[in-house]
């Protein structure tokens, strides 16, 4: 009996060990997430954050959706919540810096953003941070089609020009931005300025010839992503072609092409003219017959 109890005990111990091993193995299957944050400010207005979440599957990074993230302003003050967001199918989530954090935002010239994920049954907890300094770009143009972009950063309480910042000066197009000349990027001088000559004279603009110039700093370690736009009438006027109301083969009956009307009526008039003349012949034949009868 004792031997039996020992055996049962031993068996239970193995089952317990295996079940706990199984539980451990499930823990080990949780994936690791890679969280990153980017900072954006467009036209020197409301800054916003873009958080991206991805994971490695078969050696390749893939975006992960439906991941809840907490975005904080300055990681040392974990209580300053910017927003709670959830990633979309691209693994991305955005949040603007809300007006309620105006005081905290103004209190410092540099800020650190924190994105944290608390973990769930599929993924381990993860976090990322990003520190950026406040900066802005101003764009100016001259009548001889020169574009000057000036980069400033906040030092103490004033905006100071920054030297050696790489930026792009381009024309906004439908899918991407087109550089204003053959130079792909520019670097600011000691006055914080970068100047570019506009050499895209024939580029199509809107109906008034307006195009949008863009000066932008991309993925800068100190300042993040900054972009500023200016509309100038330097493009060629785009006159849209609309066939909707024209005489075409697919138009309504009152918009039949003239050539078709001409051809169709010419043929119909010619053929029916001949046929009518033949009907007249019948009457002529009849007249001859009646004259003989008379």
């Amino acid at each position, binding site marked *: 009996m004792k031997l039996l109890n020992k055996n049962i005990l031993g068996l239970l111990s193995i089952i317990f060990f295996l079940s706990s091993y199984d539980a451990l193995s499930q823990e080990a299957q949780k994936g690791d997430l890679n969280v990153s944050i980017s900072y954006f400010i467009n036209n020197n207005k409301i800054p916003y954050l873009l958080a991206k979440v991805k994971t490695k599957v078969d050696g390749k990074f893939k975006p992960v959706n439906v991941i809840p993230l907490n975005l904080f302003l300055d990681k040392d003050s974990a209580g300053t919540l910017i927003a709670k967001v959830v990633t979309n199918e691209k693994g991305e989530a955005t949040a603007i810096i809300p007006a309620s954090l105006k005081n905290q935002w103004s209190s410092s010239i540099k800020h650190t953003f924190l994105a944290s994920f608390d973990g769930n049954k599929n993924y381990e907890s993860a976090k990322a941070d990003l520190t950026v300094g406040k900066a802005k770009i101003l764009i100016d143009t001259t009548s001889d089609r020169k574009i000057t972009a000036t980069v400033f950063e906040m030092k103490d309480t004033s905006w100071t020009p920054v030297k050696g910042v790489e930026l792009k000066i381009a024309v906004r197009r439908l899918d991407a931005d087109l550089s204003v000349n053959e130079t792909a990027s520019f670097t600011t001088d000691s006055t914080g300025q970068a100047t570019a000559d506009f050499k895209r004279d024939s580029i199509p603009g809107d109906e008034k010839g307006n195009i949008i110039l863009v000066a932008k700093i991309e993925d800068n370690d100190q300042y993040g992503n900054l972009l500023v736009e200016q509309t100038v009438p330097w493009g060629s006027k785009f006159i849209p072609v609309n066939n909707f109301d024209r005489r075409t083969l697919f138009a309504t009956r009152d918009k039949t092409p003239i050539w078709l009307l001409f051809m169709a009526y010419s043929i119909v008039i010619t053929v029916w003219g001949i046929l009518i003349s033949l009907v007249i012949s019948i009457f002529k034949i009849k007249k001859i*017959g009646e004259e003989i009868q008379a």
Partner: protein
Amino acid sequence: MENLNSTANEKIIQDLLPQKFGKSGKIWTGILVAFCLVGLFAYYRQLRYGLVVTSMRDYVSWGIYISNFVFFVAISLVGSLITAVFRLADVHWSTPLTRIAEIIAVAAIIFASLIIIVDMGSPERFYNLFIHGRLQSPIIWDVIVITTYFFISILLLYFPLLPDIQILIKYKEKSSKRLQKFYSFIGSFWKGTPAQFKLSEKAINILCITIIPVAFSIHTVTSWLFATTYRPGWDSTNFGAYFISGAFLVGAGGVVVAMYVFRKAYHLEKYITADHFEKMGRIVVLLALLYLYFNVNEYLVPAFKMKKSEEAHLNGLFTGEFAPLFWFAISVGMLIPIIILLFKKGRRPLPVFIAGIMVVVGAWFKRYLIVTPTLLHPFLPMTNVPDSYRHYFPSWEEWAIALGSLAGAMLVITILSRIFPIIPIQETITERHETAE
């Protein structure tokens, strides 16, 4: 000599004057009338309950009505072939066949117009073609060209008939009073004067010249109803020529069938001779080879490329659900008649008649194969539709109307052959005199 001539003329006139229906003629007419009445009843049901009585649904919106229309349009070409082309080419042996061809053309074009109105569902929709139709649409071109062709066919029947009407009026005892009144109404003014003959000859020549481009147009435009629509099987630049060659074939086939029937029924062996069958047999075999050539072009080239979008359609024809019908139409409509008619023995009256029937029957099914299988293979796959939308088999109403229209066309031919001489009397007399001289 003059006496001999007048006796010969008298014999020709007596032989060729329209004859009253015998027993078989009456039975034949009765059968045709019965088919027409059943067709009319089916049409009444279609008017009463709508197009839902047909098997046409969202995908197959053109069924056997349109197949029948294309068939009628095709067979109507015979008028221009026999009358116009042969007359302009100064071919005299075809004279006994001209009236048959003209009558077939008139009957076919009448029912081509009617069957289109049947296909519209409610007849008042035809009126909408005029108030809302667009000149850019091949459908409007078809309406214009069919109306024109109908009018030309009537004139082409009428002008050569005038001298014969004078003979019909002269031989009062051979026709009823009612018919005499009708003859007087349409042709009592014909006195056979040189001035009248001159005007008539000129008119016939003008008609023969005019009818050829119009006939080509009617078939080309009908083919464009399909070819201007981007669909598997219809997307072809070859369609105009393909339709015209097919129309010439079925028209010639129709003529040899009618030749044989009228020859037997009215004992016209002296006028429609074995030589006529020999010559028509040669024409039919030539046209069948031509149409076969166009068919090879029409199917071999797409099959060689086998575009994904056309694959289902072509496989359906070659090996799928339409394969039996397809190979029947190709073999019965072209291959077997070619084999029969290539041999001299095959160009005797009876084999030519059998080949003619095969050509006509094959042509009807060929038109069905041009119209319907394409509609069952749209570019976008059929999804979420009832099973009945995926297949098409005509309802009894459609069969009744289609058969009724075919019977109607034959009834018109029968009635016209009862009223008018089926072989031009005056022209036969003139030609015999010219030959004798």
